[in-house]
């Protein structure tokens, strides 16, 4: 939904609290990076509740906790009661009319410690100190204080005569049960405010938002997973991430020319120390050949720099796309690099000198090897020993007539990117498959835009088995899947036991299948699987 925020006038630490774009973002469950709502539970409850203001958001944060979800009455948790009452699915009722004053803002569901204080004040005549004792007993779970407060509460109710003894007992019983989950409202509101600010930043400054989160992903225990989740979220929002680029030399994720670019140290096997050394070496080569790196071609990199860097780093730079600026296919670069690595230092130096003598000419690797072969053998030439001549001739034969087609196969590019970057950026396994069987994508599933029936072709990323503990299928196994395609990842894909037992062998990490299912309350329920 559009909004009327004039961002030039907005203070990000104090944004307008009624931006429809922000509330939409939270309500559709797009909560990655949003304070307190990032978890699957937070996302799911945000989607169900659809908060429209800070009151709702504060309550959402307060009741998205195990205690609230385990507090059951009338076969529903306190959380679900709140959600259903807010959405008009359940009527708003109060155990006693005297409670309306305290509980109106939360649709009759007690969410905050402060509400228990208000109730005690309203019906038991507690003063502020006594009410605070009640809050302490509830908040800190102090049984001795609780029993003292209970006696005072019941006595107070008797004096006030607003509720009878039985009603007073019952009301106190809830307050007592509520100690499991009642949240401090000031805490809840403060959290809600932070959530709103992060959501505002995400809604209005998405590139800066994601760049910041990506840059600080290393603070998370599983930072690779964090990067993957963030990038998948960005795909949902049509925000591209660009592969690493050696010319930019950004160690971590950075917004450069309005493009979010992968950090070089986020490539597997390439750390800060490697990049620091590489920077120096690149600078030396730039001075040596009088060309800045952004003007290099592949031969410049190969001949003047590749031998100065360790093999793993060069290969990882190639396979991650960091050298794509050299306008040569990755497989070709790897092959040429391997050929070049077979030459001895003396031979490489000879070739370098030839290149320096003709700075404006573009040489192919075959021409460079021929030049080497044409040079005198021995001390005066490039190749020192006669035996090496046969070897270099063999190298040239391989370059001129490679034994196999050297080209970037999607399968290999996708595999390498997944291994080195943790996520596919320029190629996905599914690019090799006919996905026209499925009308939906993983993004459609996550955005709930599939319609009642879903068909999708996707790669299985994760299979989580679950043993059924009750019901007709007790003891059997079902599974929850995470699927991936070019548009992102989708979770909450359930395969019930009858289907799972049939297709179990097709469901493993890396398998590509066609899935057919229907939309359930909490995700997709699969009823047919075809392995592709």
């Amino acid at each position, binding site marked *: 939904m559009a909004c009327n925020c004039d961002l030039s006038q907005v203070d990000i630490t104090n944004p307008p609290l009624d931006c429809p774009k922000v509330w939409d973002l939270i309500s559709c469950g797009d909560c990655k990076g949003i304070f307190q709502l990032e978890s699957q539970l937070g996302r799911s409850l945000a989607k169900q509740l659809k908060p429209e203001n800070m009151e709702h958001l504060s309550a959402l944060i307060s009741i998205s906790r195990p205690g609230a979800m385990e507090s059951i009455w009338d076969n529903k948790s306190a959380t679900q009661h709140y959600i259903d009452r807010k959405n008009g699915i359940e009527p708003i009722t109060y155990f006693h009319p005297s409670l309306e004053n305290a509980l109106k803002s939360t649709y009759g569901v007690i969410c905050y410690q402060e509400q228990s204080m208000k109730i005690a004040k309203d019906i038991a005549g507690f003063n502020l100190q006594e009410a605070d004792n009640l809050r302490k007993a509830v908040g800190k779970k102090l049984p001795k204080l609780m029993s003292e407060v209970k006696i005072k509460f019941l006595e107070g109710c008797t004096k006030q005569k607003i509720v009878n003894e039985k009603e007073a007992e019952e009301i106190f019983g809830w307050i007592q049960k509520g100690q499991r989950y009642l949240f401090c409202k000031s805490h809840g509101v403060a959290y809600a405010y932070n959530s709103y600010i992060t959501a505002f930043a995400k809604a209005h400054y998405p590139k800066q938002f994601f760049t910041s989160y990506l840059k600080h992903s290393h603070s998370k225990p599983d930072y690779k997973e964090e990067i993957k989740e963030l990038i998948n979220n960005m795909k949902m929002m049509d925000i591209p991430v660009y592969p690493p680029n050696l010319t930019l030399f950004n160690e971590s994720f950075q917004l450069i020319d309005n493009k979010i670019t992968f950090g070089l140290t986020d490539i597997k096997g390439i750390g800060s120390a490697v990049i620091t050394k590489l920077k120096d070496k690149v600078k030396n080569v730039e001075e040596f050949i009088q060309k800045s790196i952004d003007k290099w071609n592949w031969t410049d990199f190969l001949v003047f720099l590749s031998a100065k860097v360790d093999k793993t780093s060069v290969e990882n730079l190639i396979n991650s796309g960091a050298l794509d600026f050299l306008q040569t296919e990755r497989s070709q670069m790897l092959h040429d690099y*391997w050929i070049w690595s077979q030459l001895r230092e003396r031979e490489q130096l000879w070739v370098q000198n030839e290149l320096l003598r003709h700075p404006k000419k573009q040489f192919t690797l075959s021409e460079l090897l021929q030049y080497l072969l044409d040079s005198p053998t021995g001390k005066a030439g490039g190749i020192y020993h006669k035996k090496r001549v046969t070897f270099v001739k*063999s190298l040239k034969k*391989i370059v001129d007539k*490679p*034994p196999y087609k050297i080209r970037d196969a999607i399968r290999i590019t996708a595999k390498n990117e997944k*291994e080195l970057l943790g996520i596919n950026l320029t190629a996905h396994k599914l690019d090799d498959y006919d996905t026209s069987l499925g009308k939906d994508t993983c993004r459609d599933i996550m955005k709930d835009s599939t319609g009642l029936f879903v068909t999708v072709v996707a790669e299985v990323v994760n299979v989580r088995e679950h043993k059924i503990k009750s019901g007709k299928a007790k003891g059997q196994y079902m599974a929850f899947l995470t699927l991936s395609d070019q548009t992102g990842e989708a979770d909450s894909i359930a395969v019930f036991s009858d289907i799972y037992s049939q297709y179990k062998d*097709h469901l493993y*990490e*890396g398998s590509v299948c066609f899935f057919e299912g229907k939309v359930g309350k909490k995700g997709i329920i699969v009823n047919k699987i075809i392995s592709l």
Partner: protein
Amino acid sequence: MNHKFYICYDLETDSPNPEEAHPTEIAAVPIEPRSLKILADETFNVIVQPPDLNEKDYFENHSDTIHWHASNHKVEAKDMLEKWKKEGVEQKLALQEFNRYCKQFEIEKTSQNWYVDPIPVGYNIIGFDNKILQRICQDNKVSCPFSFVNQVDIMHLLFTWFENIGGPSNFKMDTLREFFQMPHEGTAHEALTDVIDTARIFVRFLQFQRKQAHVKKFKGAFNGV
């Protein structure tokens, strides 16, 4: 469920003795494991120089084999030797290239896939090609592209299918081509032609086996026996 690529490969050699033979040609073609599609545009083919090719008595010592190759290629024996010298690459480089090629077909290592290398398939590879490959990889200190945890020898596979029903008079490739009436392009006993024909036989039998094989037929088959 197999999801490892098959690599159907063949070595043309300068001797019929696997303990001494050196390859003069390596050819390979990959087979996609689920669809069993022969990836004919991703073949591997290289002429290899045996290490002793330039020795004076090489021709004498390998005369029979050289003549055999020459007749298959419809050239003179001396021309065959010249071809190896002119087009052949050093053995170690050829092996390294073959290694790099096979690595492309490794699958992702996951909790279910510990051995990621492709599965070698070929005609008489257990008795011949695998032995040579392992030996020369060791000699050249190049890692072998296959772990051999799984391997499929077409000669053995066909033996088990035909062993009591008659069929081909022997299990030589030429006999099999005739028996199956295989149309083929290229010259018989050119490594790439042989490899593609072998791959086609393998795929056909594997497709047939997949139709016949159901877990229910095997699970508990010995129960109560």
